[in-house]
């Protein structure tokens, strides 16, 4: 009798959970990201009717930042460990693939996953050390990491030192020259968003979010917080490293002051903060908005210093008035439009 009751309760709970899932799924529109992806995949067809290289470049640039911001979000958004030093992995990916491209002539697009893996392994090792501290300590240690890498990269002659390395230019006609990189970034962005969705909906993601709420409670409820945090660090380093690999070949040269400038890591943080940390759509929206802002400032005002000023101002205003970001704030008030609800 008791046996039967338990089964009934379990079945009832199952039905209840399913009804919740259906209710949540109704509020979500997972078709929207696929639609965007499909549109982006056919976008280069514009090249057949005219010269849209600028559009292609901007989309590619945005996609590059979508990969990086989504990667950052896996650590900074889910786990709550804010790293200001993620451009270190951007540089590691860029240099690893770039060196192989320069020496062995293997395209960085093929090497990107391997470069990501190298970044992830180095990230795992760094994470083992730096993730022992929390909060401001972690943020400061990540800043110190950038400085250390900057000095090392600038003085390491084998990888070109401060002057960097020039990479060969591909021999496609101008009209199509950007396309390999374009598709590489779009595919990487799609993979990054998909993986971050899968992580968020897994036991691993649940553990990460538990860590961001209260690490001690998470630990005492049986989560191996140390392993979880370090794995999150490695996964986020993987995506940032992959983006760096292809970015180096796209620019045709690699140099420490392209990869290891503070503005790049700030952009990653800002995109997530502006869009909404810990959400799937947040980094994507943030990337689109920030790149649009950047283009606007550079195109209308010209100076990169004003760009720094504006980036800082946007970040301050967002942090003061919408600390949850666009997606987070809208969701809190129940006004999130359905097509932005990817969680």
């Amino acid at each position, binding site marked *: 009798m008791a046996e039967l009751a338990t089964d009934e309760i379990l079945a009832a709970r199952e039905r209840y959970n399913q009804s919740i899932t259906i209710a949540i799924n109704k509020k979500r529109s997972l078709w929207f990201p696929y639609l965007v992806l499909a549109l982006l995949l056919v976008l280069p067809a514009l090249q057949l009717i005219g010269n849209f290289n600028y559009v292609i470049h901007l989309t590619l640039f945005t996609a590059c930042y979508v990969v990086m911001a989504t990667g950052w979000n896996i650590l900074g958004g889910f786990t709550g460990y804010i790293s200001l030093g993620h451009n270190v992995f951007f540089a590691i990916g860029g240099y690893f693939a770039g060196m192989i491209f320069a020496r062995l002539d293997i395209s960085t697009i093929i090497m990107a996953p391997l470069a990501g893996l190298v970044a992830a392994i180095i990230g795992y090792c760094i994470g083992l050390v730096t993730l022992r*501290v929390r909060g*401001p300590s972690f*943020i400061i*240690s990540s800043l110190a*990491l950038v*400085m250390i890498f900057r*000095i090392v990269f600038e003085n390491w002659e084998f990888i070109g030192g401060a002057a960097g390395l020039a990479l060969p230019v591909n021999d496609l006609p101008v009209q199509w020259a950007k396309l390999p990189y374009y598709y590489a970034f779009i595919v990487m962005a799609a993979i990054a968003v998909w993986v971050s969705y899968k992580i968020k909906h897994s036991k691993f993601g649940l553990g990460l979010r538990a860590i961001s709420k209260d690490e001690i409670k998470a630990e005492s409820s049986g989560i191996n917080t140390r392993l979880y945090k370090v794995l999150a660090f490695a996964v986020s380093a993987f995506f940032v490293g992959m983006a760096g690999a292809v970015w180096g070949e796209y620019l045709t040269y690699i140099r420490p002051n392209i990869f290891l400038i503070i503005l790049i890591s700030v952009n990653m943080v800002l995109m997530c903060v502006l869009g909404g940390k810990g959400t799937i759509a947040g980094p994507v929206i943030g990337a689109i908005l920030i790149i649009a802002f950047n283009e606007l400032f550079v195109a209308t005002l010209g100076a990169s*210093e004003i760009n*720094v*000023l504006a980036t800082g101002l946007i970040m301050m205003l967002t942090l003061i008035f919408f600390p949850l970001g666009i997606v987070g704030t809208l969701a809190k008030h129940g006004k999130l439009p359905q097509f932005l609800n990817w969680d």
Partner: protein
Amino acid sequence: MILLIQTLILGIALGGVYALMGSGLSLIFGVMRIVNLAHPSLIMIGAYVAYWPFRLSNIEPMFMLPVAAIILACIGAILYRFVFEREARSAKYSEMTVLLTFALAMVVEGMLGTAFTNTQRITSPNYATEAFFLADIFIPKGQLYASIISIIIISALALFLKYSRLGYAIRATTENREAAELLGVNVNRVGLISFAIGLALAGAAGALVSFIFSFFPSKHWEWIVILMSLVVLGGMGSILGTVIGAFLLSAVAALVGTYFGATWSTLTFFIALFVVLLVRPQGLFGEKPELA
């Protein structure tokens, strides 16, 4: 041997300036639990306040020290009122303020860069290039004066904290914010005042820095890690610790610079910061792990 002594003297002569640069950061963290990443960019403002009068009408940079301090104190009071006070209620206060001050640093950098461009600047009063000679050893006058003035300012600050009523309040708030509030300390006012004092120290440091290091707006990223390393080594919030950390690290950096090459000298600070944070986050003199 002479090289060793010479190096140590050069390092120690710089230590005083680093101590002044770091003490404001330490004070602000102690009272407010704000890791002020914008501190070096505000020091940069102080340096420009000293630079322009010198450049345009040859006014001694040291005379501009109180002016820079007052200007920065006003900026501090305004920033506290409009930015940091309202963050006190936020749940993730310390992380929030780190990000905010980081954004503030970018805003200041952008403003300075837009106004004055990213050219390297330095004030060059006569004493900046002269030196005292003791047998074979020379002591650069500029660094020596700057260090002496720094030590005087820090001593004055220490006396103020130790003996004045407001100093009691500040120390009480540093030790235990809730208890101080219960005993009738106006914590908010203490926060405002110590933030202003902290930035006044930044302004004073800026005026001294103007004739020691060449500066340009985006240089503050390098300084922040240097300053954080001193402050963290000495124990966040402890002024004495900051001073000791400053002398220690700048002597070590000078040694590294002499024996391994100047490039690696700044690396000393970065690695020291990294190691201290990971091995002993509370610093040499901190009692509990403040930052963890």
